């Protein structure tokens, strides 16, 4: 490391600086004055192009036009291209088609704004699994068995269980059909054939189904079938995907019709009714080929509810095409059927009672009525269609006011509000509905103040509005696909508030609420999950355990895994809200369900979720929980076994480090089970074992580790990612346990571990990477630094960058926690060499390498000395690098290793680095500049102000202009450096320079970052100490006149600090003099400064109390509220400073002036006044102030009583005991306190 290097780098940078100074505009740093142009205004006389008009030249404008005439743009005019209206030169441009190529059609580019809008929607970031929430329909209202009218209305538990049974059956049949289709038999083909002789041959599936339903007497079967049909339709599954499934329900309908032949048959012809597309689809079946609505056109949730039908509202939706696609998409109309079918020999059947036609998809509904009766061939589009399509969304809803936004989707729910119906002829219920609608719209789309009042109204009137109407509107909104986070948050908030008010009235709606809230439990967003938990726990508190169980029970063995999963999570929340003991009997029963393995699976899953939710709060009930699921370890279903093992690991994790005795029962099955399992379930068993071992005492842990390690070592080679993760986790947990010895790990585990996991492939996957690093670090805690570092040090020079990084991170963590004392000379060399290589070889500057380097150097300490020249050379050349991030990283590294360099007595090297860094102060990237300043600061710290090279008197003037940099990192580092210099070596710079810095610092007082403001304030203190308070104070006092509030406040703080550091008597006279300026801002500023000053000086304030009292007298009787408020805060700080220091007279005087302010109503003012009175109470003693309070406690005017009671309460909270002797003597004999009259 020669000086030549330093010289060279420095010279290179100097040259660059020179070049920059010449090249840039006059605003930049001027080397001749060491200043940049301070003014923020553009000069009127100076040309901006300094390159052209160089500032060194004597006559810089010689030979150039210095101004441009307004109207001599002749050259431009001549280009006017039309001559006699015709171009002489051909204009070649692309065709319209080419230009608009990407505007429409398949190649259309996505609208950026549109995609942004979509991105905000919750649905857009959900996984497919989470999106399955849309498949759930809101269930019908449930009966509330606890209500007075009992199970009068709504579905009872029995009904629900029955319908679940039917649903399961449906799912089963569908599965069979799907299987069939998968096998290649066309299920629908069978039915097609049936169409011809359907009456004669019974359908294939029917007899089998019949057997199931015909178990009861004939009549019952019919009823069941009818119920099934009804159920299937009512469930609002209009998105029936396959024709086959519909076929089945129709079959059922047919069956029903067959079994009740005596039903009266009406022969009313319905051919002539208006076009009702799907009305007769069920019975006639003729339209089956093309008429089925395309699946999922209408979202499921919208159907089963009482939402306004889209048609009635007029959703501004484009009507597709000219109606020419009638043949494909529209159902056959009655006329068509009339024409198609012979009129004799056929009969139009009435739909069976209870049959509801499926709602038509919106598109069809809109398209069909648009057709004229005598349709044929080409047709002009109706003009009204046009206006319909282009209809604008309303910006203002009557009775709601201006909203923040209104989306197309909102029309579906809130369209009623704009239909212009007369409110006078509406029923009460309708009015109520509209009221709710309006309030919900305000909450969802309104401005914050609107939201607030609407939310209040909803909460306060929840009971009057009724649970039914509220939830009927609220819940569908939450199921909307285009919902955004903010809207969901607000709606969920409404539910929360309303729940609180409705209490037991929510019972019939519990399930519906759960259907919309449960998905929140598996949201990615943490806050959404918390919100969901809160709602469910409030819900369970309102509805009660029994009702919650009866509501959720039918979902426990739901055929859909998604439903079961969310139900389990909801149940866990219920358990945490109502207590585990209350739930345990139920859980025990569910986990032992004989009927279905799904129920057992869900039961165990509930137990798994409880510890995740509650953490160590499960400990008292651990035994019960483990016993409930213990037997499921040997379940016949592998899925149940797996989830049981996972539940046990969750329980063990939450219980750590207690509660091993609760697991005694299951240890044996778990260990034997681990030997028997393979694949995924083995992974879960191993995970459970891994979490149990840390709970055991040493002896057992050692034994069980030995038992399990065989399997773990075997699974090291498993290609399965999941297994890899589990195995790593188990190893790290075993390594952490007391009982497992270093010897054992070294002998058995380390070799295999490094062979299988320290391979390049592992570094490529982020999660594997982290797990391997964590496990290696855990192992190192047992086996020591050398053992680990020795094995991975070679990887530092590996060709794969990710792998090098993994090694560096591991070394960073290992050495960071264990130190480098164990590392011998040889390894030390390898280590430093390796890490230097890794550092130099990095292609992307990564903080990991920086941290690793810093840690290693700091851990080695003085042992680094031989390597320092090499390290510094590396840094030096990297400082010279063209890439900004490389320079930044080099500077950061300097900041980290300065301490070690000074330990190694390399101060000379440090100084040289300082000189080089000094040259880099012209750096243009703020991030880099910040790092360079940080490096300089750490050099100043270790070298000391006086030994610093370059000398402070050169360094500081360079920093002054940098102080004006707006970048936070730069500001923070400069102010830190300047503050340090001001604190330690202010004499090295002349006072004028310090004053200049003071002016710059004023701007920093309004920085956004608090740390910067604080540092600036402290620096004011140091500077004032160095050059005396007078000049600084003058600057600060004049700054009180500025308009900006933030700046004034910070100035006041700075004055306070100056007063504190230079003793108050140096500042107070000037400050009080300033109060005489007849300007409100200044006077307030002075008061504020006084307030800060008294806060900072505390007890020292007692010498100044009498000095400032006249000023405060004046301030407290000022007309301006804010003035009195600020004066009150001064009084507060004085009073708190002089507690017990004999200033009672002054305090009472101030109290008398304060007291009339008691009736202020502005919240800030009254708060300050009360605080001041409290402070004085502390200074003069409670009884004295209580004498003031008694007067108003029972004043006839409430407006008087209120503030007095507030004061009473403050006094009571702070010093109730001191009030005892001060209570007034009451005349009534009953009320006298005789004990106090005892006199000895």
């Amino acid at each position, binding site marked *: 490391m020669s000086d030549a290097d330093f010289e060279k780098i420095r010279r290179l940078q100097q040259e660059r600086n020179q070049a920059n100074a010449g090249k840039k505009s006059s605003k930049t740093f001027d080397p001749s004055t060491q200043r940049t142009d301070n003014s923020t205004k553009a000069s009127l006389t100076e040309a901006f192009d300094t390159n052209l008009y160089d500032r060194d030249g004597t006559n810089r404008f010689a030979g150039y036009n210095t101004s441009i005439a307004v109207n001599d743009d002749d050259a431009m005019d001549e280009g006017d291209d039309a001559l006699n209206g015709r171009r002489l030169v051909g204009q070649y441009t692309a065709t319209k088609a080419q230009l608009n190529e990407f505007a429409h059609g398949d190649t259309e580019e996505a609208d950026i704004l549109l995609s942004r809008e979509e991105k905000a929607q919750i649905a857009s970031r959900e996984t497919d699994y989470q999106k399955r929430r849309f498949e759930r329909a809101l269930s019908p209202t449930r009966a509330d068995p606890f209500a007075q009218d009992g199970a009068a209305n709504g579905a009872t538990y029995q009904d629900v269980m029955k319908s679940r049974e039917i649903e399961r059956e449906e799912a089963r049949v569908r599965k069979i059909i799907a299987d069939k289709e998968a096998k290649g038999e066309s299920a629908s083909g069978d039915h097609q054939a049936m169409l011809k002789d359907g009456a004669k041959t019974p359908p294939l599936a029917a007899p089998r189904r019949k057997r199931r339903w015909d178990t009861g007497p004939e009549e019952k079967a019919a009823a069941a079938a009818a119920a099934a049909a009804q159920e299937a339709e009512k469930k609002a599954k209009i998105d029936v995907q396959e024709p086959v499934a519909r076929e089945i329900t129709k079959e059922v309908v047919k069956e029903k019709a067959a079994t009740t032949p005596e039903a009266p048959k009406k022969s009313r012809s319905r051919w002539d009714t208006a076009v009702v597309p799907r009305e007769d689809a069920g019975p006639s079946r003729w339209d089956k080929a093309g008429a089925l609505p395309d699946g999922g056109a209408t979202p499921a949730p919208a159907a089963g509810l009482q939402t306004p039908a889209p048609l009635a509202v007029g959703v501004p939706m484009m009507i597709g095409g000219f109606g020419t696609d009638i043949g494909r998409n529209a159902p056959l109309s009655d006329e068509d059927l009339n024409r198609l079918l012979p009129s004799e020999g056929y009969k139009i059947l009435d739909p069976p009672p209870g049959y509801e036609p499926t709602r038509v998809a919106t598109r069809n509904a809109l398209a069909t009525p648009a057709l004229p009766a005598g349709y044929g061939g080409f047709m002009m589009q109706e003009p009204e269609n046009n206006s319909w399509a282009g209809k604008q969304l309303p910006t203002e809803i009557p009775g709601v006011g201006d909203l923040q936004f209104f989306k197309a989707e909102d029309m579906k729910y809130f369209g009623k509000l704009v239909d212009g119906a007369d409110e006078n002829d509406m029923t009460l219920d309708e009015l109520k509905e509209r009221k709710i609608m309006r309030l919900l719209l305000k909450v969802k789309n309104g401005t914050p103040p609107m939201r*607030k*009042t609407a939310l*209040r109204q909803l909460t306060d009137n929840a009971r009057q509005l009724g649970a039914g109407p509220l939830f009927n509107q609220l819940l569908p909104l939450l199921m909307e696909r285009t919902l955004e986070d903010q809207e969901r948050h607000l709606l969920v908030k409404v539910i929360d508030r309303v729940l609180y008010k409705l209490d037991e009235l929510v019972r019939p709606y519990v399930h519906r609420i759960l259907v919309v809230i449960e998905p929140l439990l598996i949201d990615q967003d943490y806050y959404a999950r918390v919100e969901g938990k809160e709602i469910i726990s409030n819900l369970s508190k309102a509805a009660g355990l029994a009702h919650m169980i009866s509501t959720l029970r039918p979902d426990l063995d739901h055929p859909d895994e998604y439903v079961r999963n969310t139900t389990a999570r909801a149940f866990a929340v219920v358990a945490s809200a109502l207590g585990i003991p209350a739930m345990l009997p139920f859980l025990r029963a569910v986990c032992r369900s004989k009927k279905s393995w799904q129920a057992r699976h869900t039961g165990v899953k509930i137990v798994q979720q409880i510890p995740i939710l509650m953490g160590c709060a499960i400990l008292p009930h651990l035994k019960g929980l483990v016993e409930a699921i213990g037997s499921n370890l040997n379940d016949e279903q592998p899925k149940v076994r797996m989830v049981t093992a996972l539940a046990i690991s969750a329980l063990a994790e939450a219980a750590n480090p207690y509660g091993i005795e609760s697991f005694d029962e299951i240890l044996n099955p778990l260990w034997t089970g681990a030997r028997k399992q393979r694949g995924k379930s083995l992974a879960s068993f191993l995970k459970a074992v891994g979490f149990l071992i840390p709970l055991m005492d040493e002896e057992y842990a050692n034994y069980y580790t030995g038992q399990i390690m065989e399997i773990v070592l075997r699974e090291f080679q498993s290609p399965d990612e999941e297994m890899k993760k589990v195995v790593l986790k188990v190893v790290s947990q075993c390594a952490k346990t007391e009982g497992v010895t270093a010897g054992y790990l070294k002998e058995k585990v380390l070799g295999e571990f490094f062979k299988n996991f320290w391979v390049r492939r592992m570094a490529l996957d982020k999660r594997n990477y982290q797990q391997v690093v964590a496990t290696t670090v855990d192992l190192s805690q047992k086996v020591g630094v050398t053992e680990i570092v020795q094995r991975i040090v070679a990887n530092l020079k590996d060709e794969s960058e990710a792998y090098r990084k993994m090694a560096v991170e591991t070394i960073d963590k290992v050495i960071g926690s264990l130190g480098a004392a164990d590392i011998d000379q040889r390894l030390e060399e390898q280590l430093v060499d390796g890490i230097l290589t890794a550092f130099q070889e990095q292609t992307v500057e990564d903080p990991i390498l920086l941290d690793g380097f810093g840690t290693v150097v700091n851990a080695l300490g003085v042992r680094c000395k031989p390597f320092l020249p090499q390290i510094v050379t590396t840094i030096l050349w990297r400082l010279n690098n063209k890439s900004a991030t490389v320079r930044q990283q080099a500077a950061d590294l300097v900041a980290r290793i300065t301490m070690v360099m000074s330990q190694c007595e390399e101060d000379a090297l440090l100084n040289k680095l300082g000189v080089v860094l000094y040259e880099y102060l012209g750096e243009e990237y703020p991030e880099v500049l910040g790092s360079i300043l940080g490096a300089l600061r750490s050099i100043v710290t270790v070298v000391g102000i006086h030994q610093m090279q370059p000398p402070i008197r050169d360094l500081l003037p360079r920093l002054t202009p940098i102080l004006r940099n707006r970048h936070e990192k730069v500001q923070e580092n400069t102010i830190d450096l300047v503050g340090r210099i001001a604190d330690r070596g202010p004499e090295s710079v002349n006072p004028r320079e310090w004053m200049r810095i003071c002016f710059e610092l004023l701007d920093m007082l309004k920085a956004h970052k608090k740390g910067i403001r604080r540092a600036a304030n402290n620096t004011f203190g140091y500077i004032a100490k160095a050059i005396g308070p007078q000049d600084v104070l003058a600057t600060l006092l004049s700054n009180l006149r500025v308009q900006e509030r933030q700046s004034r406040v910070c100035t006041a703080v700075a004055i306070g600090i100056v007063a504190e550091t230079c003793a108050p008597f140096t500042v107070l006279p000037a400050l009080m003099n300033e109060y005489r300026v007849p300007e409100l801002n200044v006077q307030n500023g002075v008061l504020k400064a006084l307030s800060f000053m008294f806060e900072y000086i505390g007890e020292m304030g007692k010498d100044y109390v009498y000095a400032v009292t006249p000023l405060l007298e004046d301030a407290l009787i000022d007309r301006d509220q804010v003035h009195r408020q600020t004066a009150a805060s001064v009084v507060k700080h004085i009073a708190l400073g002089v507690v017990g220091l004999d200033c009672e007279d002054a305090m009472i005087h101030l109290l008398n002036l304060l007291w009339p302010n008691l009736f202020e109503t502005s*919240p800030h003012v009254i708060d300050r006044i009360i605080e001041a009175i409290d402070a004085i109470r502390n200074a003069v003693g409670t009884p004295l102030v209580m004498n003031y309070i008694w007067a108003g*406690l*029972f004043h006839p005017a*409430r407006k008087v*009583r*209120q503030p007095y*009671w507030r004061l*009473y*309460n403050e006094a*009571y*909270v702070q010093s*109730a*005991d001191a*009030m*005892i002797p001060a*209570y007034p003597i*009451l005349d009534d004999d*009953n*009320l006298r*306190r005789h*004990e*106090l009259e*005892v*006199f*000895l």
Partner: protein
Amino acid sequence: MADKLRAQQQLEALQARYVGTGHADTTKFEWTSNIARDSYASYIGHPALLQYMSIGLGQPREKLRAQMIDKMIQPVGPPPEPKD
């Protein structure tokens, strides 16, 4: 409006934590009961004061203490009849 609401909530929270605090609608009965209870609690809480009183009243200290605790129940008599 919002401030009033917040003040109300704060008062409720305060009242939940400190029974002895009051508000503009505190009745004489409530207030005097609180005074009496707080006084007894304070006497009991200062052993020297309790000793002094027990000497003055000629009763053992512990007995006086128990008496005072008993007196905290309806210290100023039964609550007044609610009149509409």
